[in-house]
């Protein structure tokens, strides 16, 4: 294992993706006094000298009460901030589902990421949870979306493989298959078939129609479909 810490540009993260594509994990190597943010619960392991702090939203905002409210509201999205002192360190970040990860460098532009796909980001990247673009979307998992913007590194994950689609004009993606897309794209929620009845009988329901120029990152599998197969086979909950 090579052990070089690139501290020249601390706004970027040194990320090595391991065990791709099915069991992917991110090995994030930090130089001295470097930090990053990751989804709560995603840490597998870390060097003993790495410090971890939890916030309910962005760094230095949101108290315990705010966190409790979010918890009671059924939301469980918390961010952990990892930082190093005068020594560097390593943090390993994993995911819930079998699937891949992707590292994306941002230079000021924004991307919209499906909440469950967010893994980690460097400190100058803003993670905004109030994005309401798909407000009308109903789903068992209550999908939420993050608006991510700034300069630095973002890591996202997928259920199954990730494939990019260059939209040039129009393209349709099932909402459950969206990992992330560039903010420059216009989108509208629509039906997949000619009529609503066709769309729901076809199992597609709501799809997203993208317009303009930009990239959509799509995942090969859909967690809601997988859950719908497993759920009925399990003992009912009370």
């Amino acid at each position, binding site marked *: 294992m090579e052990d070089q810490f690139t501290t020249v540009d601390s706004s970027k993260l040194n990320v090595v993706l391991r*065990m791709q594509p099915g*069991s992917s994990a991110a090995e994030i190597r930090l130089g001295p006094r470097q930090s990053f943010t990751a989804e709560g619960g995603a840490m*597998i392991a870390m060097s003993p000298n*790495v410090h971890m702090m*939890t916030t309910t939203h962005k760094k230095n905002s949101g108290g315990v009460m705010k*966190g409790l409210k979010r918890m009671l509201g059924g939301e469980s999205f918390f961010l952990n901030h990892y930082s190093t002192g005068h020594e560097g360190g390593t943090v390993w970040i*994993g995911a819930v589902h*079998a699937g891949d990860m992707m590292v994306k460098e941002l230079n000021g532009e924004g991307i919209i990421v499906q909440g469950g796909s967010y893994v980690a980001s460097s400190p100058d990247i803003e993670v905004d949870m109030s994005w309401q673009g798909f407000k009308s979307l109903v789903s068992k998992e209550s999908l939420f979306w993050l608006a991510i913007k700034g300069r630095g590194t973002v890591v996202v994950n997928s259920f199954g493989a990730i494939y990019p689609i260059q939209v040039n004009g129009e393209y349709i993606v099932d909402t459950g298959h969206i990992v992330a897309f560039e903010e420059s794209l216009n989108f509208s929620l629509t039906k997949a078939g000619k009529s609503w009845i066709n769309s729901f009988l076809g199992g597609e329901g709501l799809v997203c129609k993208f317009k303009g120029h930009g990239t959509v990152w799509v995942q090969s599998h859909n967690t809601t479909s997988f859950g719908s197969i497993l759920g009925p086979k*399990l*003992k009912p909950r009370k």
Partner: protein
Amino acid sequence: METLDKKGFDFRIDCKPDYGFLTVNIPSGKKLKVEAAAMASMDTNLEMKTKFRGGFSRFLGGESIFINEFTAQNGSADIQIAPACPGDVEHIYLENQTIYLQNTAFLASADSINVESKWQGFMKGFFSGESFFLIKCSGVGDLWFNSYGGIIPIDVEDGYVIDTGHIVAFTDGLTYEISRVGGYKSLFFSGEGLVCRFSGQGRVWIQTRKITPFLTWINPFRRVKSSN
């Protein structure tokens, strides 16, 4: 068959790291210990015997209390061994070493390896959220273990922090304690809860996935029991 390790039995691990699957060639007259129900296919000259191992404590630990022993008779024999979970399979040749495995990580070993369950202490077991028991493997010979997700080895020199549910195995020279990570706010909201702090020198094998978040995720998909 391709030989990966000359010291022990000939073996091959296919479909790493997502669907690790083990094939071992057992020499004539030799014996292999295999986790109960893990045998997928085998030559007809293998004789299987079920042994009760680890006693009542292992039974309480939720680990299957039976290990099957396969003996090759009148010539060598192949056996294919599949872990219960989709995940990785790793091999280590123990030379008078001791290795501790997470409760469900034992897959197979040479007959010369002593396999026993070890009470990890009430506090450690309770707070780790995993099992009260670890599997202690010691002696000289092959050992294969499995995980949920990929297995990554980490060499520990001056300590390491590992989420309790991600530990697959660790060597004898390491000691650990359960502690919280971050402040009290982190204890409730970080999703990390409690971690294992390893100290000493040795090697820890971690897995890239964990069962409990998957179970938490599947829960909303279960049907709701009607009240009448």
